[in-house]
């Protein structure tokens, strides 16, 4: 029941997103496309936090690596191989995350990892701002939206809303990939590591290796999101991976619910909706956004996803839901 209602809602929202260019103005379409990308980015972060129990505060750096890789290769005239460029950006993001993970995860997992990743992302941002070949502070402007060819079919993504629909497909595939990783054996094992690392080790799990793999996958997906974003925004600057970017997934996850797979996505879209509806309230927009975030965190510790699941369960079966709510206050959200 719960699953059916949530699934139906997801389908409706997905359909609304796909059909958006037919009724919304270009500003709203741009916002929707951006939100899809950052939602995937937030999912990649929560793969690390919600499943492996690792908090990275430098995910913006990997997003930036993906975006810059795409921008540079497109500028270099490789737009004919767009899908390959996405794969390349993803691979570079994964490789960088792997290298950081090898060094960082051996010793630090908690607050040290958070600070270390934050520092590395800032270092990257400052370095990018000093490299003239990458446009220094101004970044790389006028990025072209290329043609994408799969086999015989070629789509010109520069035309109209083609790139938007391309984003819809790409993000849907990435979400499906994250879902598959999170719900399969690998995701289950990651959860055991988050819940009790030592117990997991005493099941024979090489916890360090699992965390490293999760760190690499998360980094690769973050870079992939970045690479999709560059032709969408058509400009990359060092600030594409600033601290605001790194905190985005954290805020989305808090708002949406860390214990639910869909939490970060829900958070991303809610956040965009709040920002969009308060865009004219210059000066108090941040206060409203912050206030809502604070309210949600205080009222619904399991995030919007948790509150939603509780609501649906109650509507579906009031008696059982009540007994369940009493018995399972600390239970994870069922996805």
């Amino acid at each position, binding site marked *: 029941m719960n699953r059916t209602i949530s699934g139906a809602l997801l389908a409706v929202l997905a359909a609304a997103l796909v059909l958006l260019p037919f009724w919304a103005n270009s500003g709203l379409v741009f916002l929707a496309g951006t939100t899809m990308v950052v939602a995937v980015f937030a999912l990649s972060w929560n793969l690390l936090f919600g499943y492996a129990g690792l908090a990275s505060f430098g995910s913006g750096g990997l997003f930036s690596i993906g975006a810059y890789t795409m921008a540079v290769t497109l500028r270099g005239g490789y737009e004919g191989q767009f899908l390959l460029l996405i794969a390349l950006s993803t691979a570079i993001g994964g490789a960088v995350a792997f290298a950081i993970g090898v060094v960082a995860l051996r010793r630090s997992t908690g607050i040290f990892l958070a600070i270390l990743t934050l520092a590395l992302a800032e270092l990257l941002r400052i370095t990018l701002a000093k490299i003239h070949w990458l446009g220094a502070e101004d970044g790389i402007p006028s990025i072209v939206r290329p043609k994408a060819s799969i086999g015989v079919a070629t789509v010109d993504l520069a035309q109209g809303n083609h790139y938007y629909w391309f984003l819809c497909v790409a993000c849907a595939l990435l979400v499906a990939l994250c879902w598959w990783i999170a719900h399969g054996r690998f995701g289950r094992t990651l959860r055991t590591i988050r*819940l009790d690392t030592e117990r997991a080790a005493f099941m024979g799990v090489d916890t360090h290796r699992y965390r490293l793999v999760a760190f690499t996958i998360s980094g690769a997906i973050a870079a992939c999101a970045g690479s999709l974003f560059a032709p969408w925004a058509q400009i990359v600057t060092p600030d594409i991976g600033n601290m605001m970017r790194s905190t985005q997934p954290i805020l989305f996850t808090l708002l949406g619910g860390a214990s639910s797979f869909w939490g970060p996505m829900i958070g991303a879209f809610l956040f965009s909706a709040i920002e969009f509806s308060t865009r004219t309230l210059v000066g108090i927009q941040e206060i409203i956004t912050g206030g809502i975030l604070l309210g949600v965190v205080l009222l619904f510790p399991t995030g919007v996803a948790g509150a939603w699941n509780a609501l649906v369960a109650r509507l579906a079966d009031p008696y059982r839901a009540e007994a369940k709510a009493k018995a399972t206050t600390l*239970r994870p959200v069922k996805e």
Partner: protein
Amino acid sequence: MIRLHSVDKSYGALKVLHGIEAEILEGETFAIIGPNGAGKTTLFKVMTGEVGCEAGTVEFLGKDVTKEPAYRRTRAGMGRTFQMARIFKEMTAEENIVVAIEARAKNMGQRDTPWYQVRPSRATVDEAGEILARLSLERKARIAAAQLSHGDKKRLELGITLAGRPKVLMLDEPTAGMSPSERVGVTELIRSISGKGSGLTVIMTEHDMGVIFGLADRIMVMNQGRKIAEGSIDDIRADPVVRDVYLGKEAHHA
């Protein structure tokens, strides 16, 4: 099975193990007893690889594993439970067993789930059901582990450990914090698991003399980080040094 050779262990300036020598034989139930702070749990940790030792060696199945991390010793066939049951509280009882079976299956190279399949395989779920039934937890399979009673949590942890199909089962105070009737139940359970036909070696620490005398083939007595006696139940009961240090008070209760 496991052989300890002159194991020394200190926490900072405090020396907690002094040259421990011990050999645990295949198929036996070996109990480590001693007053609080005698070093029983530390000895356990040295055997399982949670902590290293400054001097001495730990041999498992004839191989020196002194430098091996815990997960490798687990893969080689050690399974342990903790004094305070360590389970995955957010998961259901069934999921707790499923993840343990999956970890073992992967380590042993048994893979029956197709790579694209998200759910655990039929065989895994069935095996989890069998293990839960053995622990009389089958009716609580869908309950979040956090909601289980203290005794059930300890049973579930035993189930996680058994799912790894260990060669040696290491139980750190299996009846700690249990009611007398729960103790009898767990004693029966351990006996049924480690019965003569099973070939399973059991190493346990325990405070309850009733449990020890009901299960152990051999007993090692520790005091202040040293081994002070080792032998059968009768040997230990008769040992005057042990009587002085430990059993003197406890023997009346037993």
